[in-house]
């Protein structure tokens, strides 16, 4: 094995010359610039997909616990649709098939399609977790809400969801970390994120080890930051007197 060459990140991406201070300027970019930009794309795809996943996943999970058969069916169908097809295939479907079937989507940037693809795939998993969280509450909680004169939506809003979401924070943390890691599939539709960067940069520089180690580090940091953020939220919303809550 040859020696480390971390200088590779300071190289200009066009002429391969090492740039002082490692950042390019005036139209030139170094591999470090590219790496950071790729990290930005990874974070953008991940965070937007996370929003999509939480919004649709929560909604579908909630629908599946209502007493209305039609809504339950809708939530179930949604969940099964998005969790029974491989993620990579779903990304290709969004990129190649959906725009062909729905003409207005033809002009939509692939970034948006990837956010939708990854977000909706993950929404199926969030839906499962939210449903499980709601079902883990005593049935009497719902009855108590209704008995006080709350409508069903009010019962969800004030009684069921505040506890259910507290319960599902740990599995949702894993899901949010998974999104960061799964965002690597975006390379397949040419989003210039970390994995695509790694593939191309190591071809150009032949310094695969340094490139992949750097990318690995950034994935780890991103996922771990999300983990800490969720953990912070979990601590903040702890209920006094509950298991794991402060007294």
């Amino acid at each position, binding site marked *: 094995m040859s020696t480390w060459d971390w200088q590779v990140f300071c190289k200009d991406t066009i002429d391969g010359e090492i740039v002082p201070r490692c950042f390019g300027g005036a139209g030139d970019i170094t591999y470090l610039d590219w790496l950071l930009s790729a990290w930005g794309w990874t974070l953008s795809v991940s965070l937007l997909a996370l929003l999509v996943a939480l919004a649709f996943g929560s909604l579908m999970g909630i629908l599946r616990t209502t007493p209305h058969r039609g809504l339950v069916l809708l939530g179930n169908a949604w969940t099964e649709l998005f969790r029974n097809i491989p993620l990579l295939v779903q990304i290709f479907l969004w990129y190649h098939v959906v725009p062909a079937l729905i003409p207005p989507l033809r002009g939509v940037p692939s970034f948006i399609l990837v956010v939708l693809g990854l977000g909706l795939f993950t929404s199926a998993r969030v839906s499962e977790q939210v449903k499980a969280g709601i079902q883990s509450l005593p049935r009497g909680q719902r009855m*108590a809400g209704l008995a006080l*004169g709350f409508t069903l939506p009010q019962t969800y809003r*004030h009684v069921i969801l505040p506890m259910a979401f507290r319960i599902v924070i740990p599995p949702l943390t894993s899901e949010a970390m998974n999104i960061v890691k799964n965002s690597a599939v975006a390379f397949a539709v040419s989003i210039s994120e970390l994995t695509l960067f790694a593939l191309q940069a190591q071809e150009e520089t032949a310094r695969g080890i340094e490139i992949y180690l750097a990318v690995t580090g950034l994935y780890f940091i991103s996922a771990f930051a999300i983990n800490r953020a969720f953990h912070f939220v979990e601590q903040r919303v702890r209920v006094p*007197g509950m298991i794991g809550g402060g007294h």
Partner: protein
Amino acid sequence: MPMIEMKNVSKWYGAFQVLTECSTQVEKGEVIVVCGPSGSGKSTLIKCVNGLEPFQQGEVRVNGISVGDPKTDLPKLRAHVGMVFQHFELFPHMSITENLAIAQVKVLGRGKDEARERGLKLLDRVGLRSQADKFPGQLSGGQQQRVAIARALSMDPICMLFDEPTSALDPEMINEVLDVMVELAQEGMTMMVVTHEMGFARKVAHRVVFMDQGRIVEDDKKEAFFGSPRSERAQQFLSKILHH
């Protein structure tokens, strides 16, 4: 017009019939105790009163309003029918004060300060003013159940339903809850109480309903019930629970 009127109520879970033609009524200011062996349908019956459990046949009227009618605004009706559950069902993520105020604010449209004030007054009444800022998980079972009664009272109910309010309590906490209930009964609250506490029944009930296998087999004035129950099943039941 009776406060609660049930006429030939029948209910099935799939093919299994849990209630068979149950009829009874509770007059304004009356306290009735519903008892019977477990699985006899008592809890299901009381949950039919405010429509928490749907029923397939018969009629339930509360203050003249039909519970089973799809046109009835159930949330509006339930807002004035207090209910106390076996497992208290306080909302664990809210402080005691918030538990007492939330429905007053969101359902009755009272102001936050007014709701809080009323809540604190009711806490005083059940002897728990000092616990106002705690959370349900920090209270004992008996205290939680007293808060649950206060929460139901905060809605100014026209009648109260109790579904085995002391069954989940440690023995030493049963009396603190029963005392609150006795006081309520003596103040003239209309109450339907599912319980095995025959001491409570003797003390304040006007009538006792005995259920077995989804049927109401006895519905008598208290004196008649404890004197000479007509059905053998009720006699057996009573002898079981009165001798220890």
